[in-house]
């Protein structure tokens, strides 16, 4: 009994670290993008200030029950993913609640938040929210296809659906990483990761200049605070998922921070270099190259 409480406390500590690292990482990335544009950019502590401000706004209005539940579902999706992904391999407590079938559960949780958000933003009633949602769901559906193919490929390769076992199979040197043992699956997943992080070529969902803000158009005050909190968690946890599946996992916090930073940086790097796709272009893009690579990755292991 004590053991499970201790584990819960460590999981909460892990959540706290992941949240703060996510906020810091998003600030660093915004600074990098600003430097590319020749600006100084925001101070590194700006995301925390924004959060404090959002949570302490004096008024908030609601459009109905689903409007309340939207951010809650989104946060539920993010924290749910966090709970089942092992953060540090070999650590007794920071492996969270990883169990033998967690890979399938994670794939499900990825969509869970999106759907909750769609219901909530739909009740907000703003036309831009609806456009944003339909674009977001269309794009994410096509993102999921190559990602799922890559995941199936490595599940077949390692003969397991447990993330911890997949990480365990990659220990003992850089050449044991899935990156080298299954480069096709890695390529398909890293391309679909661009869509999962929704940075520049695929950021039409929020498209600040076209459909202002997108799905969260009507969200404000603490609602938006919850969404931003979740974004910080989700960015790190998606990067950690990819780190676990393809880049050998992490055996300590420093390794986790470095690898998750580099994985997130990959999407920011592509975003800085390439301009934004239209929605039909991005949907078509995911169904071409990444899809073919994903199918090849499966054919090889059958």
């Amino acid at each position, binding site marked *: 009994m004590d053991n499970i409480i201790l584990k819960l406390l460590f999981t909460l500590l892990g959540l706290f670290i992941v949240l703060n690292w996510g906020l810091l990482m998003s600030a660093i990335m915004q600074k990098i993008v*600003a430097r590319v544009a020749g600006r*100084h*950019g*925001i101070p590194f502590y*700006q995301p925390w*200030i924004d959060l404090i*401000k959002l949570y302490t706004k*004096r*008024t908030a209005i609601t459009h109905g029950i689903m409007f309340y539940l939207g951010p809650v579902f989104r946060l539920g999706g993010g924290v749910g993913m966090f709970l089942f992904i092992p953060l540090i391999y070999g650590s007794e407590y920071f492996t969270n609640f990883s169990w033998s079938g967690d890979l399938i559960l994670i794939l499900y949780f990825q969509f869970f938040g999106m759907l909750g958000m769609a219901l909530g933003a739909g009740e907000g009633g703003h036309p831009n929210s609806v456009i944003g949602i339909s674009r977001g769901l269309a794009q994410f559906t096509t993102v999921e296809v190559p990602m799922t193919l890559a995941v199936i490929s490595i599940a077949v390769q390692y003969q397991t659906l447990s993330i911890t076992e997949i990480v365990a199979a990659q220990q003992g040197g850089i050449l044991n990483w899935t990156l080298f043992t299954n480069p096709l699956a890695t390529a398909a997943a890293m391309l679909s990761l661009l869509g999962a992080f929704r940075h520049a070529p695929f950021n039409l969902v929020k498209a600040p200049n076209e459909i202002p803000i997108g799905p969260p158009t009507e969200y404000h005050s603490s609602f938006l605070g919850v969404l931003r909190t979740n974004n910080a968690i989700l960015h790190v946890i998606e990067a950690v998922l990819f780190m676990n599946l393809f880049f050998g996992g992490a055996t300590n916090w420093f390794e986790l921070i470095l690898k998750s930073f580099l994985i997130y940086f990959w999407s920011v790097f592509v975003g800085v270099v390439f301009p934004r796709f239209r929605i039909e272009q991005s949907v078509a893009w995911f169904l071409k190259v990444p899809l073919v690579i994903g199918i090849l990755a499966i054919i090889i292991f059958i």
Partner: protein
Amino acid sequence: MSDINNNTNNKEDKFLAEENKKRTVIGPDGIEFEIDPLKDYFCDQKPEVRDPKNKVVEKFINWARAESLWVLGFGTGCGSIEIPPLLTPRFDAARFGVQMRATPRQSSVIIISGYLAVKTLKRVIRSYEQMQSPKYVLALGSCTINGGMYYDSYNTINRLDYYMPVDVYVAGCMPRPEALLAGFNKLKERIKAGRAEGANEYAEKFDWYKANQKKIIKDWNMPDYNW
């Protein structure tokens, strides 16, 4: 002041958009009922004064509010051309925590950039009221102070603070982006000192502001407060 609200009498059909007119609808179960969109679809509650609770906590929160100014991207006059340069490498307002937001719900600052036509005033009021408290108004240019070069125009307002509580004026015709940045810093000082309570002022003197607004906006076809 007695004739201020006289346009409430003829507010009925002339200016109302088609979807806002009273009409009879047949529900999915076959029952007929009458709807009045302005009453049924919109919340007509008046805004309330929200006093700061704890002095020490409020001081910290005000610091956070001052360092995170989200500006509504709403240009009303020629001054709006001074806002885009703020985001460029030369002026880079992001250093000061100033970010642009595209929706009034998420913004905390509205910049009235230059002359305000009566037609625009109506939209500005709607946007301002949709912003969440605490919210700040930054008036840019001479036109917002006394009408500027449009002082005798037939369709622009002269003094902005008759219609909404202004926190900071930036004088000039037109003020350069540097002046706007200085205005932001002045606004920050004001927020940190706890003096930027425009939203509460608006709620307190709500009737006075509404009377002034209705005096100048003849085709008033929206609820009294746009939640």
